[in-house]
C-alpha cells in the first residue's frame, strides 16, 4: 500500500488526489496547503491528515509519494526536500520557474533514486497520442511545418499567482508549455526560438504569445498561447504538414456531446450549450497510472525529468526572446 501526500490542495491537487485514490494499492494519507481549510477539506474526503506546513507532511512516515500542485516557484524546494526523505514525486508542470531550480530538483531525485515525474499530461490525451503515433508511422511524410494553439481566458486563483509572471512565467511557461513538450516529443531538440509576448508588458490579466521554433531536424513550428480570450474560453488546435500529407485537429470540432439548456424562468434569455468530449479513461488517470507503473517497476516514466527540463528550457528561451527582441539559441545556460 502506497501513501500519497498532496501538497497544494487547489484544483489540480484535488484532481490528482482523486486519480491516485482510484488505484487499489494507493491511498491519500496526508494533505498540506498554506490555506489550512483547503488541506482539511481534501484530508476529510480521504480520511487523511491535514497539515499547514508542507515540511511536516514530508516528515510523515506514512507518506511514500508526494503529489505537488503548488504555485510553480515552490516546486523545486519541495521536490528536493521530498527526494532527500526518500519520497517519490509526482509534480505538476512546469518542473520549476528557473533552470537552476529545475536542475537541482532533478539532481536531488536522481541522487535519492526516487521516481520523479512531471505532469506533462498532453501526451496522455488520446488525440495528441494518436497524432504522435500517426506522425511516427509516416502519415505526413517528412514533417515540415507544425502549428499549435492553446487559447484560454486568464486563469484566476487564490493569490492570483498566475497573473504574476515572476511566479507563473505567464502563458508560455504555464500553459503553452504543454504544446512545447508535445512538439519536442514529436521533433526532438529545438535549435532556436523567436517569440513575441505580452508577458510583463500587456494590459492587466491579459497574456498572449506567438513563438516560432526551428527544430534541429529543420521543422518550423508556430506556437500560440492565449490568456487574452474572455473567461470561459478554452480550445486547442494542432496541425502538422509534411511532404506527403497533413494532419489537423481542432478541439472545437471534437464535441461529440452537446447539450443546449434553456434558461429557466426567462424564456427569452439565451441558453447555455455545454460541449463534452468524454473518454473511458481520463488522461489525468493515465498519467498517474504511468507514474505508478514506473515507480513499481523501478524504471523512468515515459515523461522523464529531462523531458520536463527541455520543455521548461524552451518556454524560458521563448520568454527571453520576447523580452530581448532577438532569436534565442538552445540549449540555454542554466
Amino acid at each position, binding site marked *: 500500500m502506497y501513501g500519497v501526500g498532496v501538497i497544494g490542495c487547489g484544483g489540480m491537487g484535488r484532481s490528482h488526489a482523486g486519480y491516485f485514490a482510484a488505484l487499489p494499492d494507493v491511498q491519500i494519507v496526508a494533505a498540506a496547503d498554506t490555506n489550512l481549510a483547503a488541506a482539511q477539506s481534501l484530508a476529510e474526503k480521504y480520511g487523511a491528515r491535514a497539515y499547514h506546513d508542507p515540511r511536516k507532511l514530508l516528515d510523515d512516515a506514512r507518506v511514500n509519494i508526494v503529489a505537488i500542485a503548488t504555485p510553480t516557484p515552490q516546486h523545486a524546494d519541495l521536490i528536493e526536500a521530498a527526494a532527500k526523505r526518500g519520497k517519490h514525486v509526482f509534480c505538476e508542470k512546469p518542473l520549476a520557474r528557473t533552470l537552476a531550480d529545475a536542475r537541482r530538483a532533478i539532481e536531488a531525485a536522481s541522487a535519492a533514486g526516487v521516481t520523479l515525474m512531471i505532469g506533462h499530461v498532453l501526451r496522455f490525451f488520446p488525440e495528441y497520442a494518436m497524432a504522435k503515433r500517426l506522425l511516427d508511422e509516416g502519415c*505526413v511524410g*517528412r514533417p*515540415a*511545418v507544425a*502549428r499549435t494553439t492553446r*487559447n484560454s481566458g486568464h486563469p484566476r486563483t487564490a493569490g492570483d499567482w498566475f497573473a504574476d509572471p515572476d511566479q507563473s512565467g505567464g502563458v508560455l511557461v504555464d500553459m503553452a508549455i504543454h504544446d512545447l513538450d508535445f512538439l519536442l516529443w514529436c521533433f526532438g531538440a529545438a535549435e*532556436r526560438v*523567436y517569440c*513575441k509576448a*505580452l508577458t510583463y508588458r*500587456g*494590459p492587466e490579466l*491579459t497574456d*498572449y504569445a*506567438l513563438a*516560432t521554433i*526551428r527544430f534541429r531536424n*529543420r*521543422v*518550423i513550428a*508556430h506556437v*500560440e498561447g*492565449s490568456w*487574452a*480570450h*474572455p473567461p470561459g474560453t478554452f480550445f486547442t488546435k494542432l496541425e502538422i*504538414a*509534411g*511532404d*506527403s*500529407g*497533413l494532419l489537423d485537429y481542432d478541439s472545437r470540432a471534437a464535441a461529440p456531446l452537446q447539450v443546449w439548456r434553456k434558461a429557466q424562468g426567462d424564456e427569452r434569455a439565451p441558453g447555455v450549450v455545454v460541449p463534452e468530449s468524454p473518454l473511458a479513461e481520463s488522461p489525468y488517470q493515465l498519467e498517474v497510472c504511468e507514474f505508478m507503473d514506473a515507480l513499481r517497476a523501478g524504471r523512468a516514466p515515459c515523461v522523464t525529468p529531462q523531458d520536463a527540463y527541455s520543455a521548461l528550457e524552451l518556454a524560458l528561451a521563448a520568454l527571453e526572446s520576447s523580452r530581448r*527582441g*532577438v*532569436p534565442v539559441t538552445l540549449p540555454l545556460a542554466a
Partner: protein
Amino acid sequence: MVNVGILSFAHMHAGSYAACLNSLPNANLLGIADDDEARGKDMAARFETQFMSRDDLVARVDAVIVTAENAKHAEWALPAAAAGKHVLCEKPIAADIADARRIIAACDDAGVKLGIAFPCRYIPPVRRLKALCDSGDLGPFLAAKGTNRGRMPGGWFAVKALSGGGAVLDHTVHVLDLMRWMLKAEVVEVYAEVDRLMHDIESDDCGTLNMTFDNGVFATLDPSWSRPKTYPTWGDVTLQIVGAKGVAAVDAFGQKLDVYDDRRGATSWSYWGSNADLGLIADFIDAVENDRPFDITGSDGLRALEVAMAAYRSADEKRPVKIAELR
C-alpha cells in the same frame, strides 16, 4: 464602358479576371496579349475576345490587367503606363523592390491609376472584420496572426528568375496587406524562418514570418505551400486580431460545402461565398469609369513586397531585419 486588355495569362488568376470582365455591364474585355502566343490565342478563344499584339492592344484600351510572371510585371506595365493606360497589377507588385518602384513611378509620371490585385479585401467576412477593427470594439490592438497556406503551384512560381521567390513571396503579400489595412499600421521589423522542406523545387516552400508593427502590435504569418495534394481545397486565408477588449478571427474562405465524390475518389470543399475577384475587378472598373482613386495602391503593393523581402534577408542572416534597411 471601360475597355480592358489582359496582358499575359502566365498567372492563373487571369482567367478569373477575364470572366469577371465578361460579366460586368460596364467593362469590355477588348483583347489579350501574351508573349506565349499559343496560350494567348487559346485564352482569347476561351474568353471570346481577340488575341492582339501588345502595342495594338494597349493603344486601344482604357486599362490593362497585368497577369504576367512576377519578374515580367514591369516590362508589361511600363509601356501601358507610358501610353496613358490605367494598370491593375497582379500581386506581388513585382519580383523585386526596384521593379516595384519603377512601376509606381511610371504610373505616377503618366498620371494613370495603379491598382494592385489584393482580392481578399473584397471578401464579405473579411470586410466585416475590417469594420469591426475600425469600430474600436476590439479595443487597442495587441497582436495578430494570419495564414495563407496553399498547394505548391508549380511552373514559374518555383523558378526564382521568374517569380523572385517561392511561398514566402507568393503568400505573404495578401495577408500582410490585410493586416496593414485593418491595423492601420506599418511593419517596422521582420524575423522569419524560411526553408524548402516539402517539394523538389528551386525556391522556398515554407516559413513563418514574425512582424512588429509601428503601433506596437506583433504578428505572425504562415505563407507555406503546405497543403498536400489530397487536401480538400487549394488553401486558406485566415486572420485573427487580438485586442484588449476581445479577439476576432476570420476564415476568409470558410463558407464551403464538404463534398464526397466517388467519381473523383476525393473529398473536396466547395466554396460558395462571394466572388472576391468580381469585387476587385468591379471596383477597379468603377474607379476608372468615374475617375476616382482606387484604394489599393502601388504603395500598398510595395509595402507588402518589402515585408516578404525582409523575411528572406532575415532568414538568410538569422536575425530580425528592419524594413528601413531595405530602403
